[in-house]
């Protein structure tokens, strides 16, 4: 391993929501300062909300000085969960405060943040990007998933802002998908347990890649880069084959999709290594991936939760593979972000 590591998705959170009050303007802190909300910090801290257990450990403070040499992209996981909020206006205020806090507290020489933007108001999301996007502490934008697929034109203002500021979009589930009304639904209907929902999360990445592909989003925004982090990556070949077949069958029905969808997947879409434990025995499945598709996979640790460190990734995929993930990460940042990797 010679290159510095680019960790494309790790998390940080606040231990107490009260820490955000100084970052709220006007009377908003009075709106949020009620136990029903501040007491729910433990729910929001259960970052993938895949447990029905009674207790969740508090979030350990994140010290940007602890980031290894290279670059760690930090997502405020508590912000992702606004996709399940009913108060869509309050969600924007909360995210503004959380992003301001993150810029204050989590940025360091090797630690930058992904700005979490409001999924409820695309124009506000674009505004949030334009307000902070030039800050050197911001290297990406994260959009929580609602029931409006990513290829919808309602997101165009957001994508315009991201491409104007050369920021990639990082998608990670919040954990309330398939559970809270308004958040993105999961496949099927009501699920047997939170573990089932966790297992099915990659379908969100699949549907949104299909939506981006079939809606022609990457023709409207050729420079837009979208990373689906934390969903694994082994589902990619099956999805790409299926999309290409649908395009071949029905291309006359979608003249705005000018090439088979895999072409844009290979130039605009990324996936990440976590959880690498589901990708054991690469010799058995590696053949499904073209070289070009392997180049779209980057390293993400998922720290500080169930964490894949470099050692674990190397153990499963081997040293060469890990080096490739790091190189891919450099390409991801070069293509899409302003940070110095």
């Amino acid at each position, binding site marked *: 391993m010679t290159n510095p590591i680019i960790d494309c998705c790790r998390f940080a959170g606040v231990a107490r929501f009260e820490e955000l009050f100084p970052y709220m303007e006007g009377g908003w802190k009075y709106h949020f300062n009620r136990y029903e909300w501040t007491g729910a910090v433990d729910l929001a801290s259960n970052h993938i909300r*895949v*447990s029905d257990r009674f207790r969740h450990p508090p979030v350990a403070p994140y010290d940007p000085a602890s980031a290894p040499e290279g670059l760690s992209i930090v997502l405020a996981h508590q912000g992702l969960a606004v996709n399940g909020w009913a108060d869509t206006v309050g969600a924007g205020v909360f995210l503004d405060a959380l992003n301001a806090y993150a810029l204050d507290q989590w940025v360091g020489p090797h630690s930058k943040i992904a700005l979490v933007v409001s999924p409820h108001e695309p124009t506000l999301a674009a505004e949030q990007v334009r307000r902070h996007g030039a800050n050197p502490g911001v290297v990406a934008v994260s959009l929580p998933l609602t*029931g409006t*697929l990513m*290829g919808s034109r309602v997101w165009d203002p957001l994508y315009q802002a991201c491409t104007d500021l050369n920021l990639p979009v990082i998608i990670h589930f919040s954990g309330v*998908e*398939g559970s809270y009304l308004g958040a*993105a*639904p*999961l*496949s*099927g*209907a*009501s*699920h*047997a*347990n*939170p*573990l*089932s929902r*966790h*297992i*099915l999360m*990659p*379908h*969100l990445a*699949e*549907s*949104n890649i*299909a*939506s981006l592909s*079939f*809606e022609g989003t990457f023709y409207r925004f050729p420079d837009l880069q979208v990373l689906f982090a934390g969903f*694994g990556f*082994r*589902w990619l*070949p*099956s999805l790409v*084959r*299926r*999309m290409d*077949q*649908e*395009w071949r*069958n*029905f291309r*006359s*029905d*979608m003249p705005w999709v000018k090439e088979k969808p895999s072409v844009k997947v290979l130039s605009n879409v990324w996936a990440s290594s976590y*959880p690498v434990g*589901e*990708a054991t025995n690469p010799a*058995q*499945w*590696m*053949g*499904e*991936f*073209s070289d070009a598709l392997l180049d779209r996979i980057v390293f993400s640790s998922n720290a500080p939760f*169930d964490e894949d460190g470099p050692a674990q990734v190397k153990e499963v995929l081997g040293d060469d593979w890990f080096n490739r993930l790091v190189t891919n990460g450099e390409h991801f940042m070069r293509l899409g972000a302003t940070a110095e990797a």
Partner: protein
Amino acid sequence: MSDTKMSEVNMTNKPEARARIPIIDCDVHPLISDINVLAPYFTQEWRDFFFGSIKQQSENGFVYARARDRYPHPNTTYQLDALPPAGGPAGSDPAFTIEKLIEPYGITTALLLPQEHYGVVRFANSKAAAAFENANNEYLIDHWLGHDKRYALAITVSDHDPHQAAQDIRRLGDKPGVVGVQVLINKNMLGSSVFDPIYAAACDMDLAIVSHQNGGEGCYSYAQAPAGGAPRFYGERHAVLPQIGAANVLDMVMSGTFERFPKLRVVMVEWGFSWLASLLPRMDYLWEKNRSATPFVKRRPSEYVVEHFKFATQPLDEAARASEFQAMFGIPDLDKMLLFSSDYPHYDTDNPDVILAKIPDSMKEAVYWRNAHDAFGPRIFRQ
């Protein structure tokens, strides 16, 4: 069941040119030629209900559950050369299906999955659902199973009234040629205990459960849907439709269905299979980390899948490279799960000659017939 010898299978009607391997096509769709042919299978009360006019013009309202003004198909849903010369919709003439599919390709058994039933998922009235399902089931038993012994049938039920469905399974389940129960997916996931009476009846009658997309997915307020939201149009929706099959496979495992019904076999048709490559290791890996999340799962989730599920080939993924094709067929234990299907007479029918030729030699017998035989039992060969 898998120890049946090929020599025990009657091979009459098979073209000499074809290798001496039986072929079971697990997805052939029979249609009724005209809704009026079902009239004799209804009581007068239900004839009045279904055939009484409310002065609306609709000639084909039952054929699909898919809302055609929501996800209109870009072309036709059937192969043009599947239209019977004597008239009627594609797939409505049992003799013509023999002429176009069974004889030319040497199909030993064609599993009939009726599709008018799919429209039942829109029904609000459980009694009407049962009346329609029964009429259609009985018509197909008389006119298709009675026409040729190369036809087998999965009678169709829904979860509108599971106890009624169980009664119907017990009543029709031992008719010659009935080999399975096609269960319509609607608002309940297949692991729900709502289905237990249906599964109990299927196990008692030694019938496999069959699940096929019904077209209603993603269309109605209470229908199951793909993840993420509403796809915009037909091709996009079709690209992500397999997710619903995958979600229901997982749901049956996580809900302990196979602990409750250890003999239950489930055949997933037209849901694809290549997604097993990612789903199986993911379900095992995350379950190992969170075993107490489901008290019903006693061993690795993938073991239930391999033991209880079969997956049909159509539509077969088109691999770009030989290594991709090999890896696609390298899913662990796929040789125990994969069976052949053509989806005749639909627009995306997989040509049996083309698909069967692609199956790796080591899996040919399993995919051609053995896995279907494992699922449906010896009665899949009627001769």
